[in-house]
Each structure stands twice: as C-alpha cells, then as structure tokens.
C-alpha cells in the first residue's frame, strides 16, 4: 500500500464496503438489502475522499447514494404491496461463493505479489475545474459516446415501456 494513504481509515472503509456488499447479498428483506447497498456506496465515496478525489466522492454520493439507491428503494416500495413480499428466498450457492472466493484469492495473490505499484499517483488530485477542463477537451469524445449510450438506453426504455401503436 502506498504510504500516502492512512492505513486505519482505509481498512475501516474497506471493511464497510465489503460488509455492506455481503449484507446486500445475504439480507432476506429486500428493503434492508437496498439500504446495505446504500451503505456500501457511501463507503466507496469515503474511499475517494481518502484519495483526495473530492469531485469523484461528490459524484459518487450524488449519483449512486443519492439517485441510484433512492430509485431502487422507490421501485421496491412501489412494487411491494404487502410487508411480507419484501422477504425473499436466499440463493445460497456454494459454487458462487467458491468462485468469488477463488477469484478474490487469485487476484489478491497477484496484486500482493507485486509492490510497490509503479505508476506514481499525481501528488495532488486534480481539482474540479481541472477535471471539467479535461472532461470537455481531451475526454470529450468518450463523454459524447457515453451520452449516446444513455440515449440508446432511453430509446430502449421507451420502446419497452411504450404501447405499440402500430399493432
């Protein structure tokens, strides 16, 4: 680990993220699961803060914690008619857990087997203005492509939710 990152907060946040993810999977109540998801996302934004990427932390909070998690909760609440419907059967697949564990171990060994990471992080994370500048100059094309992707998603959503006036 680069020494620039304080060890204790990092491990706390990581524990929170992994714990939140696990709880999302293993909660029997889907509403609880959504909240655990929210917790994990907030913790990720904390990780960004720890890396001095304030803008990303902000975006993470706004988009994922704010929009995505809230949207998820809305959908769940709107589709549930009774309280009992929120309880779901758990899919406890050993195979899946095993796969995840193996994958984690392999990756960990690979990553752990190599330190320090070579690429130097910028001494100071770029500010929001700098970020914006980059985004609309050098990264303009990916940005635009991303908007096209969203447009496609929009068209798809409209198509699927819409009525077919032709038929």
């Amino acid at each position: 680990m680069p020494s620039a990152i304080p060890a204790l907060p990092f491990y706390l946040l990581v524990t929170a993220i992994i714990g939140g993810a696990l709880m999302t999977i293993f909660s029997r109540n889907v509403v609880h699961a959504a909240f655990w998801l929210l917790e994990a996302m907030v913790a990720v934004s904390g990780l960004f803060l720890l890396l001095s990427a304030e803008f990303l932390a902000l975006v993470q909070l706004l988009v994922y914690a704010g929009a995505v998690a809230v949207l998820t909760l809305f959908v769940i609440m709107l589709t549930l008619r009774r309280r009992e419907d929120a309880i779901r059967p758990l899919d406890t697949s050993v195979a899946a857990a095993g796969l995840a564990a193996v994958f984690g171990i392999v990756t960990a060994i690979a990553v752990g087997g190599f330190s320090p990471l070579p690429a130097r992080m910028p001494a100071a994370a770029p500010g929001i203005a700098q970020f914006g500048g980059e985004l609309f100059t050098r990264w303009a094309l990916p940005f635009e492509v991303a908007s096209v992707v969203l447009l496609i998603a929009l068209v798809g959503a409209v198509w699927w939710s819409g009525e077919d006036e032709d038929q």
Partner: protein
Amino acid sequence: MRSYLLIAPELVMLASALLAMFADVLPVRGRRVAAWIGAAGAAAALVIALAVGPGSVTLFGSMLRFDSLAVFARAATAGLTSVYLLWLAGNGASVGRTREATTLALLAAMGAMLMSGARDLVLLFLTMEAATMPAYVLIGFDRGDERGLEGALKYFLLSMVTSLVMLYGMAFLFGMSGTTSLDGLRVTAFGSLGLIAAVLTIVGLLAKLAAAPFHYWSPDAYAGAPAFSVAFVSSVPKIAGVVALVRVVGVLGPQVRGLTDVMLTVAVASMVIGNFAAFGQKDVRRLMAYSGVAHVGYLLLALAGGTEAGSIGAVLYAVAYAVPSMAIMFVVAEEGPTLDDMDGLLSRRPLAAWAMLVFLLSLVGVPPLAGFFGKLYMFSAALDAGLVWPVVLAFAFSAVSAGYYFGIVRSAFLGQRPRAVRVRSTRNRAADVAIAICLLATVLLGLLAGPMLSVLGYALR
C-alpha cells in the same frame, strides 16, 4: 476542422439516427421512411469513410486513429448497416416498427465504427457498450414475445458481467501503466498481475464475440429474438469486435507471455463446441448461433498465431462471415425460423434458395466465395505461426460444418412439402435487392480478394 472530417462518417450515422428517430414528424410519411433515411445515411457514411481514407492523424489526444484497418472495418460496418436497413425498408411492416429498429441499428453501427478506431481503453469500453446496448433492445424487440425478452435479459445480464470483468481488468492495466492509451500500456514488468489484467480485459471482448466458453447467451438470445434482429446483432458488431480484439491483443500479446495460448484454447473450445452443438438444431437461428461460435473460433485461431497476417485474416474473415450470415437471417426472417419453414423454398422462391446456397457454401468455405479466401488467409497465417494441429482441426471442422449447413440446403432444395405461399404483401423489391447485394458481396469478396487485401494489408504496416 480536419478532425471532424475524419469522424464525419460517425457523425453522419448519428445524424441519420436522430433523423430516423423523428421520422414521424417529417413531411414524407410512411412506415418505412425511417429505414430509408437510415439506409441512405449509412450508405453516405460508407462513401465518406472510403473517401476520407486512412490517416495517421490521431484525434482527441491519443484516443482515435483511423488507420486502414479501421477504415476497412468502419466501411464494412457502414455498408452492412446500409444493406440491413435497405432490407428493413423493404420488409418494414412485417417486423414491427422500423423507426426504433433503424435508430438502434444506426447507433450501434456508429458505436462499432468508433470502436474500430479506438486507441484508448476508456473509449474502447464506451464504444463497445454503445455497440452492444442496442442489441439488447433489438433482441427483445418483439415486446409481446416472452422468449425474446428473456433472451434480451439473459444477454444483458451476462454481457454486463463480462463488461465488468473487462472493466476490472482495464483498471489494473491503468493502475500498472498509468495510462489508458493503448499505445502506452506497459505491463511487461508486472508478472502474474499483468497476465490477469490482460486476460480479464480480453474476456469482455470474447464474450461479446460469443466465443466459447462465454457464448451461453447467444443461442438463447438468437433463438428468442426475431430473426431480423439476429441478422444485425449476429453480424455487424462482430467486425468491430474483432478489430478491437486485434488492437488489444496486438498491444498485450507481445508483452504477456501465454496470452496467445489463452486465445488458442478459446479458439479450439469454440470450434469444438460450436461445431458439435450446431448439429441437429431445428431452429436456424440457434444453428447459426452455434455456428457463429465456431466461426469465432476460426477467427481466434488466426489471432492466436500473433502475426500480422493473422490479424488481417481475422478481420477479413469477420466481414466474410458477417455478410452471408446476415443475409441468411434475412431469408429466415422472411420465411420462418425452423428448418421446416425452409421446406420447398426452391419452388417458392428459387432465387432466394440459390442465394441461400451460396451463403451457406461461403460459410463452409467453398471456393471461390468470400469465406474461402478468408479461411485460406487466416489459416495460412495460423499455419505459418506453427499451429499445425489446430489448423488441421479447423479445416476438418470446416468440412464437417457442411453437415449441418446442408441441413438447411436439404430442406430448401429437397424438402417435399411445398407449403402454401405466405402472403407478404408488405415485402417489396428493396428486400430482394438487399439480399442480392449480399450475394454479390459474397461472391465478389472472394473473386476480388486482392483489392480487399490491399486495403487491409496496408493497415498494419
């Protein structure tokens, strides 16, 4: 200004997509207007792409460069999209609303075209998503059909998993080399981490190409989808996918020892699984899905050789595969998806039957059609790289594949049941012209392999 000219084909595609989306408000009304606009737009994109030609100018920093390989791929993509939309225009009403289909196809094609020029991981990923995203919708385009929706959902979920895997790998790559530019990736010094990153990255591409063992989505998705969607999804985006794979493997392959072995394994697995599973299929869409897996196996074999000729061969073959497989799906869309639907095609529509034969023969690799020269070039590259037994296996499988492809031929030509002609009042000449263009392309790409290769051969020099 010059740089905008360079991406003019994509801009034209985007513009026609938007135009097609709002075709209803245009003064010219009609069900097929959107498709006609799209076809014209894509054709224009093709012309512009060829006119602009290859260049060494890098756009948007180091993001985008249209070398001749990219020009070939984007021209082919635009051309195929144009033919597809032409067919759609001819067959419009029978496949539901053409407006959305046209828009989605154009946007996917645009994504694919950009993807073929992408030299940056971020752009590569985004364009890949742009090229794939419409496919989910197209697969589930028939809103009333559960199987289509199920296929779409399956495709979506699996595709997302592999996309995430890819993203994960890309994150490592970025972490290791400090850049997302393909030209700047340096993973040599990172031992197993570099390997893992490389493998994770190409897995996403392999899954998009439906290479075994990442192919599970394709039979279900294709068999559930309306055939006209399969026509597009199974063919056009694959060209850019292969180009992207060429680029990534081209950068990572020399650095990561063993990556070619991965490719080889996947190639052989794809050939074996695809060719075996395609036997006995009664649904042409499923058959084509599995045979598509097999063809991707051949492609990967060429790439596994790690030579320049192999890369050229793979891209060439991607086109040689896309044209007939799209055209076969046209016919399937018009006639029905099962082998029984093909019965007596010869007596109903002799020209379609003969065209179908040519397409299938090209897929088998019978000279002098496009598929033959593709295979010849690919396999000679692979053989040159020392992959003797896989190549022998590939050749053997090519021959064997005639066994299942000829199931279609037998139905179409020897089927005893002359089914009552389905009335298709909405079909018009444009659909036939589209098939004819595919036919012509299948033959000419073979007979005139020279010019095509000279475009491609320039690419990697």
